[in-house]
């Protein structure tokens, strides 16, 4: 990774894809399942968004497995693919650190569903371990 006047030059495979994303409090958000690129005014490619979830990850499996994962995931959800704007990325180290809080991002519908419908109903889910 080298710094240029326009930003950081990244090897997507080595430095970004599949890396853990953590929020400003150190909580785990997701993996960088895929990214959306945009061409800047200078003609260079910039990372615009982090794409999240099986519909983003599926195509990266290649082959029939990828087609299946994506097809199943698309049947399970018609909402847009969850994304994180790259503007909130603060640092890229052994994890991708965000300047935002997990609670404001709302990028994990399955986590929300499992929490609201299953885990919250079990006694003790709100308490820290003793």
């Amino acid at each position, binding site marked *: 990774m080298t710094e240029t006047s326009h930003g950081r030059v990244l090897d997507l495979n080595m430095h970004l894809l*599949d890396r853990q994303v953590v929020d400003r409090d150190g909580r785990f958000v997701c993996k960088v*399942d895929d990214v959306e690129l945009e061409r800047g005014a200078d003609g260079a490619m910039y990372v615009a968004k982090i794409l999240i979830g099986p519909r983003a990850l599926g195509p990266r499996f290649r082959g029939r497995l990828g087609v299946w994962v994506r097809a199943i995931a698309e049947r399970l959800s018609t909402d847009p693919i969850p994304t994180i704007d790259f503007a909130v990325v603060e640092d890229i180290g052994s994890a991708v650190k965000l300047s935002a809080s997990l609670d404001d991002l709302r990028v994990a519908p399955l986590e929300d569903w499992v929490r609201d419908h299953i885990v919250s109903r079990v006694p003790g*889910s709100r308490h820290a371990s003793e």
Partner: protein
Amino acid sequence: MKLLQVALGILTAIGGFVDIGDLVTNALVGARFGMSLAWATLVGMVGICLYAEMSGRVAAVTRRGTFDLVRERLGPRAGLANLIASYLVTALTFAAEIGGVALALELATSVNYLLWVPLVAFFAWLLIWRVNFSILENGAGLLGLALLAFGFALWRLHPDFGHLAHQIIAPHKPGSERLTTYWYYAIALFGAAMTPYEVFFFSSGGVEEGWSRKDLMVARLNVYVGFPLGATISLFIAACATLVLKPRGIEVDTLSQVALPVAFAAGKVALAFLILGFVAATFGAALETGLSCGYAAAQYFGWQWGKFVRPRQASRFHLAVLLTLIAATGLVLTTIDPVKITEYSVVFSAIALPLTYFPILVISNDPDYMGEQKNGRALNFLATVFLVIIVVASVAAIPLMIWTRAGQ
């Protein structure tokens, strides 16, 4: 305080080293092959020390668990294949541990183990759900020290230690056993000592407890002192079986036969301690394998995991652990003999070993992550030698399993 922390860590590592796989495999092999396969346990011990230290160092420096980095290094496709294989092996081990706890409780109470299984499963879930990580780890590890009853029994048997040592140093296959069976059990012992979940758990535990670079010394002491002492218990088990079971032609296919030498040589009180040790060691390992299944899945998919947050903040992780627990309990309740599950789980562990250990070696050499803490040359040389051994054992395991009909 620091000294106390170090001592506690080492004691935990000793007690935590032995699980149902080590108990059954060491006794079984001791009863059939004497000490002629002890070398496999010793080789496995050196391997687990090397790789657990690496995974702990990676966790302390990067604050990432092992599986987190597996996907990053192998890519999503190979990472997923790795996840599925590692998960299945760990879940199978989880089932074996639950069955082991139930069998140990049957030994103590004469109540059929199948009646204990649901209770054991529920209690394991309750602890994972509610109890602090350090208490889980240290509690099980310390109570597991009761397995030293094997050492006491060995001492009471007044063996010719020189003769036992000679059998270890100059291994000689018993004439009644075939060479393929001998190597099959060498791989089983190797798999039992190096079970993959141990490194998932060790590295994820490092993240749970918030290790940083300054905790590295403590982590290293735990590994380099605690694990070898834990492996000594494995050797005690094998030696007890060699002295008591082998001369009488008793083969091990139940947990009570594992305990027999202790009851024979050291009496009731030692047996009571031993059963306590069985329960603690297998129950502790049940918690470790259950958590490890959740760790592996959560770290691959990037979910919040761990006991350092409230359960509702790591919903998918806790659900994954719960579903695994239900599946593992279901498997034991089919009345498949838990000792058989154990025998297979250690061999499947050996088959899955390269999947875990290869990425750890790669990551601990990556200067991007590790900076000055990356592997030195001597360590890399040793670790590479071990990787070759691991791959050979993994490739040979299935043909040997078929050839020997799983060691018959």
